[in-house]
């Protein structure tokens, strides 16, 4: 009860501010919170990064292991993306099997990586139809202060960009080579607050918002993935303007992922 009342007061306050183009933490509608990326955060992984957007933090680790190609793509490796919204990261997450929330995050990140052809999966084929590399992208959300999707996606892109094929360990080659990343999709998420659409919503803004919209764009400014989520609606014109903003933010964030 107390929680519900607090939430309602916070929501009202957020929407009031939004009418004047303002936000609780002082940002403008098109400002991200501070973004940092720390590649190589986990040395047991073949690639890794800790990404932070404001107080939201995600660790991504890449594992590359020998596997078998899918029957319908005998000349390609396998990409597997998984997001864990562990209860450590938020009072709203409970232990148990993956919640649809976590599944959505992993699928939206996966969609952008896959559609942008971030890694050339054919290069992960070792012996057609028999042996390939399986690339596991595991994202561990450790602090959830809003906008998990962008943070997880950024951690994944940075981890992939700094990953190495452990060929020697598995006797697949003489030398370990970098995982070849060919495209750099960046996801940008927006929330509607009344007539204002703000980027990079905090936890409270997501709860106050009337719909969430994520747009992933690549380095050529193409849209590679979108996801509307939560309760609310966007007009086609809203979508078009959000895409323009996503392209602009994408450029800056992409550089962070590549350089770390």
């Amino acid at each position: 009860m107390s929680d519900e009342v607090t939430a309602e007061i916070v929501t009202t306050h957020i929407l009031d501010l939004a009418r004047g183009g303002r936000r609780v933490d002082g940002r403008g509608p098109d400002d991200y919170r501070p973004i940092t990326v720390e590649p190589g955060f986990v040395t047991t992984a073949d690639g890794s990064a800790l990404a932070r957007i404001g107080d939201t933090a995600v660790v991504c680790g890449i594992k590359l292991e020998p596997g078998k190609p899918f029957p319908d793509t005998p000349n390609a490796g396998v990409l597997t993306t998984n997001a864990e919204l562990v209860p450590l990261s938020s009072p709203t997450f409970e232990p148990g099997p993956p919640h649809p929330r976590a599944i959505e995050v992993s699928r939206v990140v996966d969609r952008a990586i896959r559609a942008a052809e971030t890694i050339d999966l054919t290069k992960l084929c070792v012996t057609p139809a028999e042996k390939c590399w399986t690339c596991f992208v595991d994202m561990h959300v450790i602090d959830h202060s809003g906008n998990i999707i962008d943070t997880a996606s950024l951690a994944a892109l940075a981890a992939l960009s700094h990953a190495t094929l452990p060929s020697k360990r598995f006797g697949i080659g003489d030398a370990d080579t970098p995982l070849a990343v060919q495209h750099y999709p960046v996801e940008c998420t927006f929330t509607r607050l009344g007539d204002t659409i703000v980027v990079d919503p905090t936890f409270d803004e997501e709860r106050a918002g009337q719909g969430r919209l994520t747009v992933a764009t690549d380095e050529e400014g193409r849209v590679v993935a979108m996801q509307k989520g939560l309760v609310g609606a966007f007009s086609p014109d809203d979508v078009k303007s959000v895409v323009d903003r996503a392209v602009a933010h994408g450029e800056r964030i992409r550089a962070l992922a590549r350089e770390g």
Partner: protein
Amino acid sequence: MGSVGAKDVPVLMTEDGRRIDGRRADELRPLRIQAGALRQADGSAFVEWGANKVMAAVYGPREVHPRHLQENNKAIVQCKYNMAAFSVDERKRPGLDRRSQEISKVIAEAFESVIFVEEYPRTSIDIYIEVLQANAGTRCAGVVAASVALADAGIPMVDLLPAVAVGKVAGHVVLDLKKEEDNFGEADLPMALVPQSGRLVLLQMEGHMTRTELSKALDLGVGGCRKIYEEMKRALRERYAPTGTASAMEVAA
């Protein structure tokens, strides 16, 4: 989306602008909607759309299970989208996979955006979508079926929710992808429209499109939704004022 390393891509668009099944870029597949297809459900609908066969049922407003999901100031909207094992070429193992869970989530959120949930506090409105035969566009067919089922159940909503996928195929932006177009095309963009407000409550996209193409795709989709909207209303009229005419009909561009 184009499978990595796949071969034998069929011709998806002829030189004179015909698609693999002869349709124009802005043409829908045949659509048939039957409201009230089931006896047990509070509301139901059966949709045949191209080679898709999708059944939807609505139960509620009713008691919330499990109880701790109950909300004091509104109804919760729950959706379960499920594919029958035999609905696809390679048998699907029964049970909810990750794809189904994601689709269920975005559909539930789409409907919660149009249902007057605050009128039924402490209840659940449960939407079940069963895909019996699949041929691309099943989530949109599911939204159409569920929307008619909700109306059939008498659940008050802002509006019906027509839905359709737009895609990019051989470089062209086209309406209502069928399976080969979905498998070998360059982009897939399912959407659901609130006709009354002109806003989208479901929107997903995978593939690659320029900003120009995306803009065109949104407009094409909105137009498609408006045609589907008419069919949805017709199905509901027939349910409540049957005229003796067949309920099957074909929607052309």
